[in-house]
């Protein structure tokens, strides 16, 4: 890792986070040794397919995983303060106050029986000493900032009176309402149509600049990563496969799984060809191999892959794979099927 754990710059510093669930079928390892830092005003993208543990990782560090069978270990420091295992009261002031959250499905993320203004005021009043009227004014101001026309009137309307994109704007306004230093966005555009996706991403970028929050954006969409992220964590089966600056990971991916992910992005200019997929199916989190989790699906599997590879690399760009640099160069120049952008 580039930053040492005592770095004061990191807003969020996660070390060896492990989240597992005790189930009837055995131990389900949802997150297995995740470490990363989010710097001040940095946008970190966490990418991976469904079930790769990216959402669980973020939810568990904020105490939003309320399953009694869950075990969470490791260290999560927010601005230098350990937040894993905080008491309810302290955690409540972190959530919504220091850390704002944006969710995947704006259609269900708001309580249907209260006006959107009321719901924003509720959060502001939970974290500040503003009066009702002040909080109301702030809520209207926020709704205007996220691009909702006629915010004064819209604040008095119920969630069902908003379209999906507009609701996501409301959720964003709510997440920003207490000036959080960190914003966690869990697939914020997945449930929206394409034009709305672009608008929401633009809005988040604009607000990130004016509010100066750091952002962790969870997605399975490489396009979102390319648009937003400064750095990327590629996750597979609860483990980080590759971590590095966005440009490097997208242009010079090192891990075979990232090759597959990038290769699977459909291209507008190649009609009439089959969509590229990664062969095989994602491993069950109940049955993650002891060695490299991706090995069962990997074309370049070797005997040594039965041992778990460490995250290694040069400088900021690291990955967990046993392939040597020479092997990678040979594979990338020889093969076209396993993806990656040229």
């Amino acid at each position, binding site marked *: 890792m580039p930053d040492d754990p005592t770095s004061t710059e990191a807003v969020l510093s996660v070390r060896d986070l492990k989240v597992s669930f005790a189930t009837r079928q055995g131990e389900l390892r949802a997150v297995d040794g995740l470490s990363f830092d989010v710097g001040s005003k940095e946008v970190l993208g966490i990418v991976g397919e469904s079930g790769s543990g990216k959402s669980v990782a973020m939810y568990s560090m904020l105490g939003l995983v309320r399953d009694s069978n869950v075990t969470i270990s490791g260290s999560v420091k927010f601005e230098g303060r350990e937040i894993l295992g905080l008491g309810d009261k302290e955690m*409540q002031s972190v959530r919504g106050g220091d850390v704002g959250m944006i969710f995947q499905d704006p259609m269900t993320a708001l309580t249907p029986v209260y006006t959107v203004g009321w719901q924003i005021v509720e959060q502001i009043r939970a974290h500040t000493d503003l009066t009702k009227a002040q909080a109301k004014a702030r809520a209207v101001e926020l709704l205007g900032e996220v691009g909702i026309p006629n915010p004064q009137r819209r604040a008095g309307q119920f969630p*069902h009176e908003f379209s999906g994109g507009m609701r996501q704007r409301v959720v964003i306004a709510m997440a920003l309402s207490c000036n959080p230093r960190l914003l966690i966005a869990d697939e914020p555009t997945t449930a929206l149509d394409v034009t709305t996706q672009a608008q929401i991403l633009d809005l988040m970028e604009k607000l990130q600049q004016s509010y100066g929050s750091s952002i962790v954006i969870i997605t399975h969409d490489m396009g979102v990563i390319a648009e937003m992220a400064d750095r990327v964590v590629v996750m597979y089966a609860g483990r980080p496969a590759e971590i590095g600056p966005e440009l490097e990971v997208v242009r010079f991916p090192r891990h075979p799984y990232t090759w597959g992910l990038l290769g699977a992005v459909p291209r507008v200019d190649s009609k009439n060809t089959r969509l590229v997929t990664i062969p095989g199916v994602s491993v069950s989190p109940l049955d993650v191999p002891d060695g490299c989790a991706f090995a069962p699906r990997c074309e370049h599997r070797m005997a040594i892959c039965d041992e778990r590879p460490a995250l290694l690399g040069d400088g900021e760009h690291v990955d967990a794979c046993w392939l040597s640099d020479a092997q990678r160069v040979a594979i990338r120049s020889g093969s076209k099927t396993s993806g990656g952008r040229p």
Partner: protein
Amino acid sequence: MVSFIIRRLISAVLVLFAISVMVFLIFFATPGVDPAARIAGRSASPAVVAAVRASFGLNRPLPIRYLLMMEHLFIKRDLTSYVNPNTPVIPQILRAAPVTLSLVLGAALIWLLIGVLGGVVAAANRGKFIDPLIMFVGIAAVSVPAYWLGEVVNYFTQSRFHSSVFSWVPSSGYVSITTSPVQWALHLVFPWLTLAALYAGIYARVLRAELVNALNEDYVRTARAKGLSERRILVRHALRCSLVALVSLFGLDFGALIGGAALLTEVVMGLPGIGQLTYNALQSLDLPVIMGCVMYAAFFVVFANAVVDVLYALLDPRVRVA
């Protein structure tokens, strides 16, 4: 909102009209005993029977007979019971209604209080020991028939421990609230508890299920992410959204009970309410009383449902548009 209420009331009136027509057709337009002879009484002279026939229009077309019957029932209020020719229908119902209203209103308060409390406590402590305990007590209360529970309660309060612990319990019966509010309440305490037990059990179980569903909703996760306290999430978000289901259930139960469905409790507890009146009328095929009771019951069921729909719209903004 106002137009919603008005529309709802108009449709309620139409439903009541339709019910009155149906009831009339079933009881007085189907072949059977000659209504004139029954209304006139057992040993009435032919002249009296003829007068009754003319007064009720029994030789005239059905729509006129319907209108005259409603006039005698509601406006002149001189439609009498078949069994006791001197007792008109409406005053009997007006005497019985306060008894049933007292019983059901009091019981409803108790069961709402216990049901909501039980449901919330169980949902808040799901997975812990107290949750299955509350649910077990709930299912036990639901499973015990009202007449059995009533008899057991009577046995303990009226005979077994009447001379010791329960010496303050008056003998069964009803005392009007205008006569003595204290006696009214004392007479009704155990009937209230008996009737409320069943419904408290149902409501606690239904509410717990609704709450557990609501607590798994995305908006609850949002509420947690906002940094709200668990108590606030449970009460202001989950409970608030679960109330809709409870209100519709309450409307149906309340309407039916006021309409006479509290019969078992009334009989066991010796309360001369609507349930008993209907039951006795059915025993003696006292058609005018049955008709009166059915229409009275229909009124409360329809009215309760109209109130529920209005409450629905107040509780759930999504309903208001429709």
